[in-house]
């Protein structure tokens, strides 16, 4: 006998209770604190801030804890929170030239004003599991020195002086806001960059990699990669001037790409640009490569049909919150649609079967 299933509400409540228990894990093991996550899993925190589009390390750490370490779920929590926040206004553009750099490297010049600063990087670590870390996390203090007082100029500026690289386009019109206007294509570069900086790291990495392997190859040199903090300034209408309201850590990547000339224009290097919240180096480099690939039209290049050149393809599929929501919705019941497909397939098969019998008889 069939009895209609009731009690969805209780099932949901119980599932939530079980989830909370699983999140806590073995009660004999000390609970993770938000500060521990913020300090010791800071690169996860950075990714959540970057893709959540909200610079708040404590909230990002809380989201990671609540999401049991599922970073896309954590990003979702941050996005859903962010969208409810009131808007007080927009900051002035940040000046990355005045960045206090923790890391600053150039792959195009051996030495340059401001120097090469490796900073806290995994780059030259040998990827050997450090079993000592399993027992004891104490670390000796790292050597330090006073930061150079001079600001660190952008590498591309040196090329600019000589006219060897295209001028970075100067735009003073306020950029569109992806979170307040529906995305529509064709999208100008400011909007594309906005979408890329909050895009899924894995998706952007894959696309950037595809350009390196020949799908719209634009051979990128890392002209410069810098990580550090910049001041955020905002004009206060009552004061009539801008005041510093805080500081954010950013990763900026400027690539120097292959050039092309024409009869009227001499050859020049071109640019790709990446700027991401926090120490998020893989993402910033990927972003710069994809940005450069998306610029094919304005630079007069051929559309070779590569995924990374296709702005609609990239922009409509780069957001992991949209992607994961739609992907996972297929878990929801589809009884009704499936039933209508069942009826149709049965009908088509019935008719096909009748036809076969007739053919056999003839």
């Amino acid at each position, binding site marked *: 006998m069939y009895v209609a299933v009731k009690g*969805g509400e209780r099932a949901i409540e119980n599932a939530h209770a079980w989830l909370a228990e699983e999140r806590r894990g073995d009660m004999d093991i000390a609970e993770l604190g938000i500060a521990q996550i913020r300090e010791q899993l800071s690169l996860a925190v950075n990714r959540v801030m970057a893709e959540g589009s909200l610079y708040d390390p404590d909230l990002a750490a809380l989201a990671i804890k609540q999401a049991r370490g599922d970073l896309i779920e954590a990003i979702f929590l941050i996005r859903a929170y962010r969208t409810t926040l009131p808007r007080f206004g927009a900051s002035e553009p940040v000046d990355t030239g005045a960045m206090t750099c923790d890391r600053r490297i150039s792959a195009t010049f051996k030495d340059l004003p401001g120097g090469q600063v490796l900073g806290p990087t995994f780059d030259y670590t040998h990827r050997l599991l450090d079993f000592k870390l399993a027992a004891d996390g104490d670390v000796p203090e790292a050597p330090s020195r006073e930061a150079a007082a001079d600001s660190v100029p952008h590498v591309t500026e040196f090329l600019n002086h000589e006219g060897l690289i295209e001028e970075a386009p100067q735009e003073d019109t306020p950029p569109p806001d992806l979170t307040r206007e*529906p995305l529509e294509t064709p999208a100008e570069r400011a909007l594309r960059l906005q979408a890329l900086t909050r895009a899924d790291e894995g998706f952007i990495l894959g696309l950037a990699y595809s350009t390196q392997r020949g799908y719209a190859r634009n051979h990128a040199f890392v002209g410069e990669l810098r990580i550090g903090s910049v001041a955020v300034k905002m004009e206060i209408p009552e004061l009539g001037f801008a005041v510093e309201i805080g500081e954010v850590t950013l990763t900026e990547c400027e690539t120097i790409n292959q050039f092309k000339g024409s009869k009227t224009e001499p050859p020049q290097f071109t640019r790709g640009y990446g700027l991401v919240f926090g120490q998020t180096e893989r993402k910033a480099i990927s972003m710069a490569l994809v940005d450069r690939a998306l610029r094919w039209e304005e630079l007069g290049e051929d559309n070779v049909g590569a995924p990374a050149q296709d702005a*609609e393809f990239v922009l409509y599929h780069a957001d992991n919150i949209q992607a994961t929501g739609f992907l996972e919705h297929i878990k929801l019941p589809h009884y009704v649609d499936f039933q209508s497909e069942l009826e149709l397939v049965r009908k088509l098969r019935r008719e096909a079967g009748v036809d076969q019998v007739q053919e056999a008889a003839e």
Partner: protein
Amino acid sequence: MTDYNFAYLDEQTKRMIRRAILKGLAIPGYQVPFASREMPMPYGWGTGGVQVSAAVLTPEDTFKVIDQGADDTTNAVSIRTFFERTAGVETTTTTCDASVIQTRHRIPEEPLSEGQILVYQVPIPEPLRFLEPRESETRKMHSLEEYGLMHVKLYEDISRHGHIATSYAYPVKVEGRYVMDPSPIPKFDNPKLGDMAAIQLFGAGREQRIYALPPYTQVVSLDFEDHPFEASKADHPCGMCGAIDSYLDELIIDDTGGRMFVCSDTDFCEARQLAGHKGKDAA
């Protein structure tokens, strides 16, 4: 819950959504872009419908949510609870008592009346999407009324299968102008779209589109003269209430392939059972 505004969204956002709804009602079947917000539920789980409901709900409304026709499926329960918490509105499972009904994949069996609003959750609002993946192209096709591709697709179905092989999300033409996706309702429900007394609003959150059908709008399912549209359902009566004119879910009841068919509209089925109707599988 007092930390959030009535029905969760802030008034500014609701105003933006209401403007999109009004534009949609003014141009029936046209997809209006709107700045969809991140909701506290995932994209693809009804965020478009939830935003539309949030924008039209008033404290005096009575709200009903169905998924696959049923009030008790988990996501319907979840959305109903969301509005109970954030809007404190009355909720009901009785179709005729609801002033706003949010639905996924079904139109209630009981005819709706003037003053009611039916809000559809829409996954892919673009009826031409699977023929042309580019939004820039499909918008152009709509503005030029260039629907040949859709007719070719339906024709190819007929030449390959002998029938139009679309059983849900069956495309319709609105007031002789826009081709519209009715959301993934079974084509059995298509005839109810046209000339309906209630307002029909369609919300696609992830795709950032809203569209609408004002009351008594002409809605025609696409077909050919020699292959007219046919609303179909499983050829059985409901096992519980005996209805012969309702859309049915098929259930597998044992491991030898035993099946039974029951109304997908749970409110309709229960009301009939209360009125004394009995199907062959009813206790």
